[in-house]
């Protein structure tokens, strides 16, 4: 399954089994050209755009190429809060998704091993959210949390929510929505590693005087690490760039705007392309640094 993308990237294939052939070029060329044309050059475009300056006396949204580093200073000063918020929300959502997704993956991959039909059905339930519109699901939460709704009523009754206050439009509801939407992305890669876990290793741990908690910490968790890494990245990366949950038409408000929100606004509404591009580069750079540190630290040494 593609959800093991990040751990699968490390799999080794016997180098000697491969051969050189012109066929390789034929197979690679179209796809690689496509990726270069529509992935690499756009990134370069973004870098270039991020350094543009407005045409003096030009039309709205008209820019020319320059080396205008001030764009970065501008976006960091203006949108630093949104950027920090995006990474904060994404980190929280990843943490909550892990807290829900890991036990769920353990349950499906290990507890349900003896019940193959039940296991298959539980797996279908985890995949199910992929098949119904992301936006409609998020809207459904908004309506469930609505002021007249049952959840708000309950929260009012037990004093969690003051009268007239709303659940939606808060940091809580945005992180809640992000968590909900990315639980399957967290659960599936962890499930994929736990499903392959050799239970005899767990037994061996018990045989060697480790109590269940120690076995979990020293055997199960390290062996599930590739799945946890994969799942965390698959959750954190899209969550940090998301602006649907944070949108005020969905679970957010102007107080919850994330970096994606301001990139979209600058690009599509304000037509401030250099600012949008600079923000994108900042987002991309932070994520690449985080991914590199994360993969390197957990890939070479044990996670815990």
């Amino acid at each position, binding site marked *: 399954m593609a959800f093991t993308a990040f751990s699968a990237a490390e799999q080794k294939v016997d180098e000697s089994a491969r*051969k050189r052939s012109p066929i390789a070029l034929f197979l*690679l060329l179209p796809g690689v050209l496509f990726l270069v044309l529509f992935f690499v050059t756009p990134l370069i475009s973004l870098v270039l*755009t991020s350094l543009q300056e407005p045409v003096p006396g030009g039309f709205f949204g008209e820019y020319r190429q320059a080396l205008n580093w001030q764009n970065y200073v501008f976006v960091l000063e203006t949108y630093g809060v949104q950027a920090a918020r995006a990474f904060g929300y994404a980190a929280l959502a990843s943490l909550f998704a892990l807290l829900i997704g890991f036990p769920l993956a353990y349950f499906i991959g290990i507890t349900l091993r003896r019940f*193959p039909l039940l296991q298959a059905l539980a797996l279908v339930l985890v995949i*199910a959210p992929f098949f119904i519109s992301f936006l409609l699901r998020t809207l*459904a939460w908004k309506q469930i949390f609505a002021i007249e709704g049952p959840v708000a009523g309950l929260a009012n009754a037990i004093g969690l929510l003051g009268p007239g206050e709303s659940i939606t439009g808060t940091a809580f509801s945005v992180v809640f929505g992000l968590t909900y939407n990315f*639980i399957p992305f967290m659960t599936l890669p962890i499930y994929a590693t736990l499903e392959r876990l050799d239970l005899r290793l767990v037994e061996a741990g018990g045989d060697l005087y480790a109590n269940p908690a120690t076995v979990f910490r020293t055997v199960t968790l390290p062996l599930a690490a590739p799945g946890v890494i994969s799942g965390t990245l698959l959750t954190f990366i899209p969550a940090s760039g998301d602006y*649907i949950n944070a949108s005020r038409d969905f679970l957010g408000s102007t107080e919850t705007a994330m970096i994606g929100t301001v990139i979209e606004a600058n690009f599509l509404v304000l037509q401030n392309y250099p600012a949008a591009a600079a923000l994108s580069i900042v987002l991309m750079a932070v994520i690449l640094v985080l991914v590199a540190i994360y993969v390197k630290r957990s890939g070479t040494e044990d996670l815990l």
Partner: protein
Amino acid sequence: MRGFGKYAIWVYSGIALVFLMIPIVYTIVFSFNDSRRTNIIWRGFTFDNWLNVCDAQDVCQAFGNSILIAVSATFIATVLGTMIAIALVRYRFRFRNTTTLLIFLPLTTPEVVLGAGLAAQFLQAGVPKGLGTVIIAHALFCISFVIVTVRARVAGLDPALEEAGRDLYGSPQQVFWRVTFPLLLPGIIAAALLSFALSFDDFIITNFNRGAEVTFPSFIYTAAARGIPAEANVIASAVFLLAILLVIIAQVGAAIRRRQRANA
């Protein structure tokens, strides 16, 4: 204590699964709502929305666009991705690490960056946005998923099978189409279905590159401010039920086959 521990994971996971289902059930239930303009408050049960989906013309139009985009993007991504996957496993070539990085990077790039990057490029190149640009954008983010999925399948394929094909007088083309391709097909189909689902549900990348075209998700995004017609719920529910039916058939079939094999 031990009994309680065993019990706890069943309860916890059960609650988590129910939690995952809540908005899905909500969406399906509200596809039967006898709503007028907005579909927020329950006004009674009706089949009207299901029977007359295309009364809401804009919804149907958006749905048609989404299907067209998803099919085209899936086709491009599956063909190109499968070719790369085979090359990665089977052949030696220079710049191998660079190629791997090129495939890995789109997976670590947030959609908003992919979308903005493409939009910036189309802008600079003066390409007008439309269905074509959306298809390219979708094929781009699907291609890495296809490669990862199909590569696993190719890596699991015994090279001796192809050698046997050649040994039995098969030409390279015959061996590919009669031996390799049929064995890769389940992986390719899985990759194509994944691409279709990703493309059909994508909003962010689409939004940067759609111009004036409306897809199903972008329709919902725009309509969210004023209220979503129940017909949108109908389409989402129908797609969901169809997909889930296919998955259940495949999963249950696989489980039954596993059990038969275990008992044999």
